[in-house]
């Protein structure tokens, strides 16, 4: 086999490992299924009545936003898994094997794409039950889904870097949530940016989440797209390039703690 074939096969071997783990740890499975359902229901029924979204029902406004958020957080398993591998010495084993090293990362990230697909199915199902409707054509919906997965993929690399940098699995969880939660909320995901204080609006408008959420809205509920679709592709590629480089660099220096 060639080096490229080894890289692909090593990635699949390790992706299989990550997927098996999710099935065997019910708390992780809950993170992927029950938690997004809960968020949709909370926002639609608790906040929904209080938030004005001109031109759209709140559920149609919310679903693209909350789905982007769940795609971004889908990668937390990667951070958790990598820092556990470091802590338990598995990283030492992998690094002593004649495998393609970055497969330790790419395997997890491939598994994230799998779990993100599961999340998408769960969330669209719940969304449709509580009244969400697509108002675009099938090719646009498919393009939107592909874009969401790309964005999730980019953020898996962010989580990979966090997992390889944090001092423990608990710390990596804390970093992930304290950094990413405010960033997802200061965006157009849950409320229209115009309702925020004027000093916050420019931050929210330039937030890549806003770009991504607006692109998803354009592709699912037919809001005006502007440049958001292209910009969100660009953001995804840029985030991937930066964090994949950083993560691979960290991986080669990673030693069990």
């Amino acid at each position: 086999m060639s080096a490229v074939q080894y890289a692909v096969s090593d990635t699949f071997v390790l992706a299989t490992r990550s997927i098996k783990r999710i099935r065997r740890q019910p708390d992780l499975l809950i993170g992927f299924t029950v938690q997004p359902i809960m968020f949709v229901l909370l926002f639609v029924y608790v906040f929904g009545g209080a938030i004005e979204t001109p031109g759209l029902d709140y559920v149609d406004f919310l679903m693209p936003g909350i789905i982007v958020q769940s795609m971004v957080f889908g990668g937390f398993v990667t951070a958790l898994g990598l820092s556990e591998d470091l802590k338990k010495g598995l990283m030492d084993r992998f690094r002593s094997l004649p495998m393609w090293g970055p497969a330790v990362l790419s395997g997890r990230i491939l598994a994230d794409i799998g779990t993100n697909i599961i999340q998408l199915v769960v969330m669209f199902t719940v969304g449709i039950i509580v009244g969400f409707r697509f108002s675009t054509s099938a090719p646009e919906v498919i393009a939107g889904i592909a874009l969401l997965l790309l964005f999730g993929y980019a953020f898996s690399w962010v989580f990979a870097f966090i997992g390889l940098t944090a001092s423990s699995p608990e710390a990596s969880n804390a970093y992930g949530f304290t950094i990413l939660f405010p960033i997802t909320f200061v965006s157009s995901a849950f409320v229209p940016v115009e309702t925020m204080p004027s000093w916050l609006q420019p931050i929210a408008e330039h937030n890549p989440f806003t770009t991504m959420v607006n692109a998803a809205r354009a592709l699912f509920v037919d809001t005006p797209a502007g440049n958001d679709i292209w910009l969100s592709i660009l953001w995804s590629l840029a985030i991937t390039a930066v964090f994949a480089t950083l993560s691979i660099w960290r991986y080669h220096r990673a030693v069990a703690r």
Partner: protein
Amino acid sequence: MSAECAVETEGLRKRYGDVEALAGVDLRARVGSVLGLLGPNGAGKTTAVRILTTLLRPDEGSARVAGFDVVKDGARVRERIGLAGQYAAVDENLSGLENLEMVGRLYHLGRKAARARARELLASFDLADAGDRLVRTYSGGMRRRVDLAAALVARPPVVFLDEPTTGLDLRSRIGLWEGIEALVDEGTTVLLTTQYLDEADRLADRIAVIDHGVVIAEGTSDELKTQVGGDRLEICLEDRDRGGEAITALTALADGRPAVENGTLRVPLSRRTGAIAEAVRRLDGAGIAIDDISLKQPTLDDVFLELTGHAAEPESNGDESR
């Protein structure tokens, strides 16, 4: 560098900030032998293993494993080594079988071969019945056996075992020792780090004693013991207050001055033949009653104390492992 050495290092140095983990280490392990790296926590054993398994780069010096330089030819080294250690680096959410299969596939054995090898190893490590259970249900000893088996998946010519039995109970340790001995019988070269003297004594052909990043003694277990001194008599007196008299009675027999502590006399000997009878005769002649008498060989504990000025066994079992 000679061809018959499976592991060979010259002047290895590694520094973490202000701490010099390795301060110029030379090691040699002949093909098919077991080299024991003996030292307390923090002596530099794990750092040496990390360098030899390509996980860390040395600051200075060179190391060859199975004929390849660990820095320049890391990929070739990784094809020829197995690593197991104090962490029991196995995935708890996979079964024993799945763990070994995964490692086999990462050594690029192919799906079928990886599975067959995994089954074979489970059988030989007495884990055949537990193979389909998740590792998180295993006992500590079982985890270490899976970890050791994982190091052997690709039948590597050189295996590194970093404190393979630290924290295990005696029964599990003996089980693991038997596994390691079987491995050596097949001709595998083993570099074993340990802080247990009995472990080095039982398993290693040659022992390098390491302390504060330096090898302070090297040789077979017998050579190291001879270095500390030969056999000695240990005599318990019935009346512990008569130690001084007993010393006077035995001085002619001793090679050096006998010592007494809590009524137990230690008499260094140059010859062991007839020593017990002679000592009994002399003490009897002086009217000193004996409770117990025995001939003792020096242990590696004595070696360690002699060489380092402190005992080998750790007082507490901390996680610090550099």
